[in-house]
């Protein structure tokens, strides 16, 4: 076991411990490990990593909207200060009935991240305590970070633009016309 570094040893340990509940585990690159698990065992995986492997710090809970596959992906980012290793623990949440387990008894700072995800993605965490409003005020539309929220349509419905924006010219085209230059092919896709 001496030739194994900490990352590989962690993967072997966690697969021995949780067996088929670990769906996938791999070393993404040096000092970064990715573990995919299911909803039932996420709490025990996080507790195991915190108590037995020294991942004492929850850096962030992130959320990804996979609209085409009809799921949300929650990413728990943990940090181990001795070996300086990040672990990303991922679970899937059904998009039609988005309920996820609440983990703020493991790390109390998770409460804020979970409230943010509840507000921005509409995922309910079981038994989460805290005001529903965190950043947005008086929001009565779809949660705005979902990918099927049409931001542009919302802007057009709620705000008025000063006239003059609709015929806005790309500055590069004007400059190129004046100096007789060619706009390179790679820059054209960014032109309006």
């Amino acid at each position, binding site marked *: 076991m001496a030739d194994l570094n900490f990352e590989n040893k962690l993967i072997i340990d966690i697969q021995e411990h949780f067996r088929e509940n670990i769906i996938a585990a791999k070393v993404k690159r040096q000092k970064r490990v990715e573990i995919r698990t299911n909803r039932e065992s996420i709490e025990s995986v996080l507790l195991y990593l915190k108590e037995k492997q020294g991942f004492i710090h929850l850096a962030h809970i992130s959320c990804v909207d996979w609209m085409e596959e009809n799921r949300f992906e929650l990413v728990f980012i943990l940090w181990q200060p001795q070996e300086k290793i990040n672990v990303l623990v991922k679970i899937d949440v059904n998009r039609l009935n988005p309920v996820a387990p609440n983990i703020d008894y493991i790390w109390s700072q998770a409460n804020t991240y979970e409230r943010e995800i509840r507000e921005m993605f509409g995922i309910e965490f079981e038994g989460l305590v805290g005001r529903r409003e965190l*950043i*947005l*005020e*008086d929001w*009565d539309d779809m949660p*705005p970070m979902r990918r099927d*929220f049409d*931001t*542009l349509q*919302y*802007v057009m419905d*709620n*705000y*008025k*633009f*000063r006239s*003059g*924006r609709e015929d806005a010219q790309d500055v590069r085209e004007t400059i190129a016309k004046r100096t007789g230059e060619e706009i390179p092919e790679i820059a054209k896709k960014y032109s309006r």
Partner: protein
Amino acid sequence: MNYVLNDRESSKIIEFIKNFARKNSLWIAAYGTGCGAIEIPPTMTSRYDAERLSIRGAATPRQADVLLITGYLAVKTLKRVIRTYEQMQDPKYVIGFGSCTINGGMYWDSYNTIKQLGLYIPVDVYINGCMPRPEAVIAGFAKLQEMIGKGEANGWKHYKENLEWYRQNQQRLIKNWKMPDFNW
């Protein structure tokens, strides 16, 4: 004494003196939104030294004459800006900083920032740029002083006269309207 004040010529003179005093003592409410507030310290400190042009910071809105909206304004902040503006004593002036207050700027397709500041509070001077440099800020203040001297910076009167129109625009964004009434 009374008939002297009612005389048209002397009221003109009094108005001139009032405007002269107002334009040479501009106190800015210490309030910053967005990224433009970072341009205020260099404007105030030794290099550009706006104090020599009679522009100074005031601690609270009730002591201030000028409200600066420095950059993008979220709907949540708009609520606080309206309350701040309505607390200020007459006469009061608003300067809109940067392209965000003019037409949304780089946040033109953001769901929670306003696109035109002029729809919600009356703006006397806009300074364009993203962000305006301290020279541009001082030029904006000079323009405001010129307008005050001529008696043209009347946004606060316009707000009182067209309060319904402003309220209508404000309440379209702020759905849960729990605000004190505008009463002076």
